[in-house]
Structure formats: C-alpha cells, structure tokens
C-alpha cells in the first residue's frame, strides 16, 4: 500500500504549471487534493511518471459567484465551496450535493474540480455539472478552451482533459428565479459511494406549470447521464417510470441491475418532488 516512485514538481504559478505539464506530455499527472489519486497510487492501480502538484497555486483557490454563474477554481476544496454563502445562494444544488461528497475530512482536502476531472461515475459533482449544463475551462501552454459538460465526460475515469493540459475552472450556471433543485442518494453507509444518486432541476412558469424537469444520475451509467423528463408535465410518478425505462444500469457487487433501476425510479420521483417544492417556494419570492 505504498505508491510507486514518481517524479515531482511543485510549480508556484499557473504559467509554470502549464509549461511543466507541456514538457511532460503524457508522462505528467496533476495532483490537486489527491483524495482519489493517492488511493489509486497506493493501490498501484496507476503509476504516473511525474506528478505536478498544484497545491501552491493560490490563484486557483477561489469561488466566485454572480447573478449568472458560480465559478470554482481548481484549488477550491469541497469544504470551501460548501461553506461559500454566495455559491449557495446562486446555485443551491452545489451545497445539496457537496454535503454528500465523502466525509468532512476528505472534503477538507479534496477539490471540487479535481473530482469532476476524475470523472468517477459515482461522483456527485460530475452529475451536478452535467445536470446544470456547466462547463470546464481547460488550459494548455498555448491555448485555452471552454468544454461544455456534455463533451467533458468521455468514459469512466476519463475526461476531455488531454495530456499537457490543466483544468483551471468549473462554471456552474446559477439557478433561475422560478427553479428549484434537489439531490438524493442511497449508499450503504453515509459517506460511502452511492449505489444510486439523482440530482434534479425543476423550473415552473408564472402559472406554476412545469417547464423544465431534468435529472442526472450517478452510479448507473459510465458517464453522468442526464434525462429530460419534461414530457411528463409535473406527473413525477410518470417521470420515474420513464426514467426506469430509459436507464440501463450494470450490476456489480453492491447491487443488481434490477435493484439499481428500481432505486433510480424511486429517487427520481423523490428528487423531482423536492426540486419542485423548492421551485414553488423560490417563485413565491420572485
């Protein structure tokens, strides 16, 4: 349970980090909070040649919120994002999901953007980015690009970040005035990986008709799956049935495919009801 040997750099600026990563190419691997990377190294599931430690890049340790977006820098730890009042007000789903990310001690070190780049299908923040249709700013030594969530997740533990690149910022759209969110999951023990989890976004119009009903799922597909369930027009039991039809979960040692599908249906309804109640509550203050 010890990591294999690797080279190590600890750049003091983003510019230095990008030039280091560019020169390393496929041999380089970014170390941020390390709460997923360190276990992988210790269990020797991966053996990168060289780690580039970004823990000194204070310029990436920020959470900035305005009326339209919450921006989270690459070094913002989960605990900081969770505690950020501005982020919570602009997009409540962030805090709703973050309190379910591992345990408080892990959240003290792990970074929100790091867990998104890690692209674990059971990660809460990947589902949040996907549901909200957020994006990730990815920097290379000579260029930068904004990658939408729909193109960011390529497969289990595989993101669009290429060799030599650094994900510098995640953007989460703020919540619309008549919208609400909810995040529910079932895990064997609180803080464990979820057997299934659902994030929901519901938006209503001035007549309280449901105009948006979307859900995102963890642990039921190789990449975060987003379903548009608006056609069920506020009938959340029907939405749950539709979700069960559209999902095709894999069995594993924690749950059979049938149980996961059943769970996804139950949690779909629960999350949509929660998000709808929040939307109604919020629209009362518009």
């Amino acid at each position, binding site marked *: *349970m*010890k*990591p*294999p*040997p*690797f*080279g*190590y750099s*600890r750049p003091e600026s983003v510019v230095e980090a990008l030039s280091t990563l560019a020169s390393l190419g496929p041999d380089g691997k970014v*170390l941020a909070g*390390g*709460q997923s990377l*360190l*276990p992988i*190294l*210790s*269990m020797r599931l991966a053996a990168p040649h060289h*780690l580039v*430690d970004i*823990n000194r890049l204070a310029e990436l340790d920020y959470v900035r919120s305005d009326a339209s977006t919450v921006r989270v820098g690459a070094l913002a730890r989960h*605990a900081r994002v969770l505690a950020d009042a501005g982020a919570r007000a602009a997009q409540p789903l962030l805090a709703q999901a973050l309190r379910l990310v*591992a*345990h*408080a*001690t*892990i959240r*003290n*070190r792990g970074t929100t953007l790091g867990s998104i780049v890690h692209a674990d299908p059971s990660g809460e923040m990947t589902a949040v980015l996907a549901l909200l249709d957020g994006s990730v700013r990815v920097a290379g030594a000579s260029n930068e690009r904004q990658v939408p969530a729909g193109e960011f997740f390529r497969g289990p533990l595989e993101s669009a970040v290429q060799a030599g690149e650094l994900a510098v910022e995640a953007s989460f759209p703020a919540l619309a005035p008549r919208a609400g969110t909810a995040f529910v999951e079932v895990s064997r023990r*609180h*803080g464990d990986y979820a057997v299934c989890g659902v994030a929901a976004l519901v938006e209503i119009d001035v007549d309280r008709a449901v105009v948006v009903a979307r859900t995102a799922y963890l642990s039921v597909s190789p990449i975060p799956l987003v379903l548009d369930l608006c056609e069920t027009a506020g009938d959340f039991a029907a939405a749950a049935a539709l979700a069960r039809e559209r999902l095709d979960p894999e069995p594993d040692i924690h749950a059979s495919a049938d149980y996961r599908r059943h769970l996804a249906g139950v949690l779909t309804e629960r999350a949509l009801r929660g998000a709808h109640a929040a939307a109604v509550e919020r629209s009362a203050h518009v």
Partner: protein
Amino acid sequence: MSEEERFDVRLIVNGAAHDVQVPARRLLSDCIRHDLRLTGTHVGCEHGVCGACTVLVDGVAMRSCLMLTVSADGTEITTVEGLTEPDGTLSPVQQAFEDCHGLQCGFCTPGFLTTITAGLRTNPDPSEDEARELIGGNLCRCTGYQNIVRSVLRAAELQSARDRATLAPAEGAGVAQSEGRA
C-alpha cells in the same frame, strides 16, 4: 534501479520544526511515524477509509495517508501527541474519552481525537446528530460508537467550561483568545 530523488521538506509538528529529506512518494502518515518517530498517528487502511491517520494540517483535519509529505512542506501539523496541554493535562477531548469510556483497543482513537478536536472548534456545541456526522468518517471496531458520541458531547461541555474558566477570572472583558487555531 537508480536512487530516488529526495526533497527537502520542513514540517512544524506540534510546534517543533522538523527538516526531513524524503522521496516524493513518502506519505505524510509514514513521514510522521517513521521519519519523525511520532507513532501516535495510526495507519489502518492506507486509502482514506478508516480515519485512524487523521491529523490537523494548519488546524484542519486531513487524512495523513492521503497526503504526500512534499505537499505538506511548510505546514503546521498537529498529531495526537500535540493535543495534550503543555503541563501534561489531557485535552478536553482526551479527558472526555476517558470519562465516557470512548475507546477499547485504542487503535482508532488518535484519528477520533484529532477529528473531534478540529470539529469542536468550528461547532463548539454540537447536537447528538451533529456529533454523529462529525465522526462519520472514522471507523471503530470495538465500541459500537455510542460512547464515542457521548465523548463528543462531553468534550464540548469540558471545552466550554475550560473556556469560561480561562476567560472569566482575569480582567473580565477584553479580547477573547479562543478564536485562534492552535
């Protein structure tokens, strides 16, 4: 095999500066135990699940098995050895574990003590539910947790009594010194 490169790292552990030369892959938990010989920090699962290795890094509870020593360069670390008062008095959390029988074999205890010490700084008066949430990331195979939950609540009582005792008698009002993170 070529010799592994070593890095100079300075850690302030329980108030004392330590300069070590370690390979990049040295886990902070191993540095604390093997290089610094502070064996109070225990290593259980070594992949972040059990919480036994939890230490305070700049006052914040973190898994020392999920940190590289090189990443911790320049930080102030508190291990279980650093919780006791300078005169040897047990800290409120340690005393509470003794009072409430919060341990049996004691293997997991260092991680609980550090986690709870940091937790009570941010929430000095936790409810029972909050106490359970606070220790949710630490595993104990002996106690069944009930006495640890009691220990958290008892530690909060002891801490507030101790804070009152240190603040009250002196010149009365003035600047409270309880804000700072030791």
